């Protein structure tokens, strides 16, 4: 799957619109918050729109309909909540619709949304094994798009563990429709998803988008989500000066602990 050369006036030139250039409306409080961009990817019908609605508006989506193109929602997240360095950030959740087997013209159009992404949430349906398998193709589609500036080539469309080890963008795997899994099958399904999350070197959350109690404040899911968003913000704003750090493939296992301390004092 070779990457095409972009024309001279490339997308990446004008896609990174600085935050200050956005139309300023309302109180100055709004303009002063920084933002990060997180993609929400997955097959159609897994529940991405319901998930994004739940995350941003703390309400269950009443009438989910088919997403055409991309729908965005914004969540205000407190980075390092509870510490003196607490700061609020805007997290833009870009819910990209479509299926992984779409025509290449649709894929090229989708690619315009994958620019300058700071984090990716991969959503799959716990009742549908194919949607979990398709996550590999989804992540490749998004990551290839973003690796263009550093010139990394991908030889074929298959899953490659090396690529995920080098990956700089934090990933999170969310499984939906947990309520539709019968008690007896739960263990088997959860084991399978644990392997999946390990392949992506990511945390995983399993929930039901029609029930807000799974993400209630203080639950382990909410803690994982908060940690993921913190990691995304860190990668974007605090580790930028040091750029890529090669040769540290196992730093994620330590939860980024020693590396965090290097940059805050």
């Amino acid at each position, binding site marked *: 799957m070779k990457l095409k050369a972009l*024309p001279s*006036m490339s*997308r990446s030139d*004008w*896609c990174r*619109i600085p935050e200050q250039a*956005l*139309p300023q*409306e*309302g*109180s100055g*409080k*709004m303009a002063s*918050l920084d*933002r990060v961009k997180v993609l929400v990817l997955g*097959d*159609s*019908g897994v529940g991405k729109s319901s998930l994004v609605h739940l995350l*941003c*508006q703390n309400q269950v989506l009443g009438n989910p309909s*088919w997403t*055409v*193109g*991309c*729908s*965005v*929602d*914004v*969540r*205000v997240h407190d980075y390092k909540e509870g510490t003196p360095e607490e700061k609020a950030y*805007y997290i*833009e959740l870009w819910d990209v619709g479509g*299926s*992984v*087997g779409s*025509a*290449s*013209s*649709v894929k*090229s*159009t989708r690619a*315009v*949304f994958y620019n300058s992404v700071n984090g990716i949430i991969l959503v799959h*349906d716990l009742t*549908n*094994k*194919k949607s979990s398998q*398709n996550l590999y193709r989804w992540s490749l589609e998004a990551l290839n798009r973003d690796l263009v500036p550093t010139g990394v080539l991908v030889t074929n469309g298959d899953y490659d563990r090396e690529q995920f080890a080098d990956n700089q963008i934090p990933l999170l795997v969310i499984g939906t429709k947990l309520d539709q899994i019968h008690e007896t099958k739960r263990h088997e399904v959860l084991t399978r998803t644990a392997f999946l999350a390990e392949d992506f070197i990511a945390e995983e959350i399993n929930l039901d988008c029609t029930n807000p109690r799974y993400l209630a404040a203080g639950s382990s899911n909410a803690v994982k989500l908060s940690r993921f968003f913190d990691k995304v913000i860190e990668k974007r704003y605090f580790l930028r000066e040091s750029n890529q750090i090669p040769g540290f493939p196992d730093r994620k296992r330590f939860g980024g602990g020693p590396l965090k301390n290097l940059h805050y004092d």
Partner: protein
Amino acid sequence: MSFLIDSSIMITSQILFFGFGWLFFMRQLFKDYEVRQYVVQVIFSVTFAFSCTMFELIIFEILGVLNSSSRYFHWKMNLCVILLILVFMVPFYIGYFIVSNIRLLHKQRLLFSCLLWLTFMYFFWKLGDPFPILSPKHGILSIEQLISRVGVIGVTLMALLSGFGAVNCPYTYMSYFLRNVTDTDILALERRLLQTMDMIISKKKRMAMARRTMFQKGEVHNRPSGFWGMIKSVTASAPGSENLTLIQQEVDALEELSRQLFLETADLYATKERIEYSKTFKGKYFNFLGYFFSIYCVWKIFMATINIVFDRVGKTDPVTRGIEITVNYLGIQFDVKFWSQHISFILVGIIIVTSIRGLLITLTKFFYAISSSKSSNVIVLLLAQIMGMYFVSSVLLIRMSMPVEYRTIITEVLGELQFNFYHRWFDVIFLVSALSSILFLYLAHKQAPEKHMAP
């Protein structure tokens, strides 16, 4: 004894067709979805198997394979089973799956699907009234009644698809109709799309911040005073929520715009790919074929008009006519009986194979375009229904392409249908479909360039 041998041959071939339908279903149609209801797959494969068996029996008729009485028996049995499936089973399951998708009616699924099936039967029966398809001496529950109605629906479908296909094929193949799309056009449209997304984001940020401040204020109020504090916070936040509804309306409009831009950009990318494809060798070959097909299409429309205007239905089939021409005008002598059998076998075989292949490809494209994980079951069953009806009416129409001595079995089994009516009906619908596709494509082609050349 020979009957047993013949039956076992037929059953083996049926099992083969069933396996082929099963594989096609798994590999092509459902390759992105998970099959949870095996009933759907079984029904699809069974419909496919019995339809192909009908064609197989026609071929056997021409070649003279198997015993003539066992052929007749299998024809009847096959026809009964197919009608059973098309009129009873598939519509019932379609109703059942539609009802299962609606959450409200989930409890009484069976009841509502029976109701749906009864409605379908009523309309299906009423369909036969305006058409002069039967001689009045048949009873109510005879095969002829069912076949005639299935035939009408199937022939309409065939003619619609043929008409559209005949016009669309040259339009797609020929590069004369391709709009000129440059990279700058695409980039300009993408930039508009991203700007719209940014506008949506900034409005959503306002809404998110407003909700957050409301939530925090609400919390401060609720803690000291219980009941009255809550009432006060509700009335105090009223203007805030009004503001939110205004912004929400603006966001809705912008989201609609972003969807439009997305679809237009995808369309431009598709056109660009087609332009690149047309420059390759394969593309040039298809371009040439396109010219050829456009001539064929014009000829077919012309013939359909002639048939309708002069009220003529072809009496002889192409094989016999071809042989007549070669014998009379070209003076070539050969054994007419022997050659007519083989030539009609080849001709009918080609017609059958291309129509099956064409239908399966069209069904697959259609399925990819409109299905989602919720509706995939219903759509596959609809496609199975269309496929069954299409094949049944192909058998009706193929009768015209065969020499007289081979038509007998179809005429015998299907009873006294007015076959001429079906050919006339096919010509009318074909003409209507072809002309309206020309009009539709012309309008779509005219309207598209103006959208993209705007600054």
